[in-house]
């Protein structure tokens, strides 16, 4: 795999994101976020800053997800539709280089989007913190760590969407499956906890229990990436858990991308 070719595909993907005015749209969303955060937070009875943080993180998460699905869905589809992929395949460049280059471009665009939204959000929270000081000091470190893990969730969702795109023949299927994986990945841990209780075993039975367990081990455990309680309420972060989560994210992303390159390499273009 040549770095030069990888960088070229990455640059194309970034330029594609800029050409589609994705970052411009994100700046507009950021401005709306900045302006609406104090309005939404003012409804709170006792936790203005907590409501503002919760609102900001939810918007960043939602916008990030929409953007991820949108970009990841068209990342391959556009080249397939415009038949550019045929030209690329005829060149002495591996499909893995093409796919990973595209993914890296996607990762840069998402990073920029999360950073822009994070900065706007931090600005609004900074002002609100001065107007409505909370009982406990706002955990700025936790806020940025939380955004970092949010970014990794989006990377994994993007990689999963790309994996589905390498095998699917329609655009809608990868999108629908990715949304399903995203939702399931946030609840698989809770389901597993329930299955392990005596009530869960009694109500669901062994087969459903086994299925729930299997789903937990296959899907990414996004609950571990969710640091909102720690950010919003200043609950202490566990350094060891964060490190393990980060390594887990790298491992999971690596496996998904590897699977995507394998399936893409075997795909036949007619």
């Amino acid at each position, binding site marked *: 795999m040549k770095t030069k070719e990888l960088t070229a595909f990455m640059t194309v993907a970034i330029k594609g994101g800029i050409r589609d005015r994705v970052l411009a749209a994100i700046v507009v969303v950021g401005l709306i976020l900045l302006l609406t955060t104090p309005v939404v937070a003012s409804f*709170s*009875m*006792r936790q203005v800053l907590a409501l503002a943080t919760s609102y900001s*993180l939810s918007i960043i*998460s939602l916008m990030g997800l929409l953007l991820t699905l949108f970009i990841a869905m068209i990342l391959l589809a556009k080249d397939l539709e415009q038949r550019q992929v045929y030209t690329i395949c005829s060149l002495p460049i591996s499909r893995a280089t093409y796919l990973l280059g595209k993914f890296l471009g996607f990762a840069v665009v998402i990073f920029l989007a999360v950073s822009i939204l994070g900065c706007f959000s931090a600005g609004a929270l900074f002002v609100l913190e001065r107007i409505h000081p909370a*009982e406990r000091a706002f955990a700025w470190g936790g806020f940025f760590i939380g955004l970092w893990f949010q970014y990794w969730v989006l990377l994994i969702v993007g990689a999963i969407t790309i994996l589905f795109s390498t095998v699917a023949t329609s655009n809608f299927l990868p999108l629908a499956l990715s949304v399903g994986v*995203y939702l399931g990945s946030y*609840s698989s841990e*809770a389901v597993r906890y329930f299955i392990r209780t005596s009530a869960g075993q009694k109500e669901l039975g062994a087969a459903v229990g086994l299925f729930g367990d299997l789903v937990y081990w296959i899907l990414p455990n996004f609950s571990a990436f969710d640091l909102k309680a720690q950010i919003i309420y200043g609950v202490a972060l566990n350094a060891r858990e964060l490190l393990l989560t980060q390594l887990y994210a790298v491992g999971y992303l690596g496996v998904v991308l590897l699977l995507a390159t394998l399936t893409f390499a075997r795909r036949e273009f007619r």
Partner: protein
Amino acid sequence: MLVFVVLLVGTHVGLTGIRDARPPEARLGFYPPAPVIKALTADHYQFTSQLISLQCLFYFGTLVELRSQVPDWWRIYRAVYTSTRLDPYNMDAYYFAQAVLTWETGMTQQAIELLEYGFAHRTWDWYLPFYISFDYAFFLKDYEKAGMYLAKAAELKPEVAWYATLAARYFYEGGSTALALAYLKEMIPAARNEAIRKRLVTRAEAFEKVLQIEQAVAEYKERYQTNPEDLGRLVRAGLLERIPHDPYGGRFYLDEQGRVRTTSKLVPVEKTHGSHKN
């Protein structure tokens, strides 16, 4: 174009009228159990929890201010419960439970359960044991538990000397009116919502009047070694300038045991209360 504008405005006005006339339960909405909401909202469950508690506040504020419909207290309780199960750190939900469920509906036990659940998570927050302590002392007359929770509040907030010293005396001497007043004065400055703040201010005013009468009764007893027959006797004895006015629109009187009561029972007299008052 004109046809569509007329259609839009006409239907919007009609629809608003129909939606405004909906029964209370439909206005608050139905919330599925917390695990279902959590599974469907992915990582947005904290914000959803806060939206539910805000929905309760809007519902309560609108109906109580308009006095047009009776709030469905049980449904409000269920919504607050769901909100706390979604996000056990959501202080707005606990504050709402304390400010509304105890005084307005008599759901003291349910409110205490919610607050205890909150305190199990918000272990740094002195407000929660303070609220629980008050509820045990004032509503349930369980001074042992009240003292226990107040000690926890004092531990978390040692700079408030009031907890560690005066509270114990309030509890053991049964001066619950003074306790209520002190409690309300802690709650009012923190109340950011106007509907709730108004309620607390009115209640504090009423307790100030009750305390004023109680002090006059105590002085009368000390002076004459007997209970006054009525409040007029206190005025005639020069212990009260005049019979205080109940801000709820009722009339203060003394019961057989010489305790201060009001015909309003500390709720606005012109209003009918919910069916779930228990």
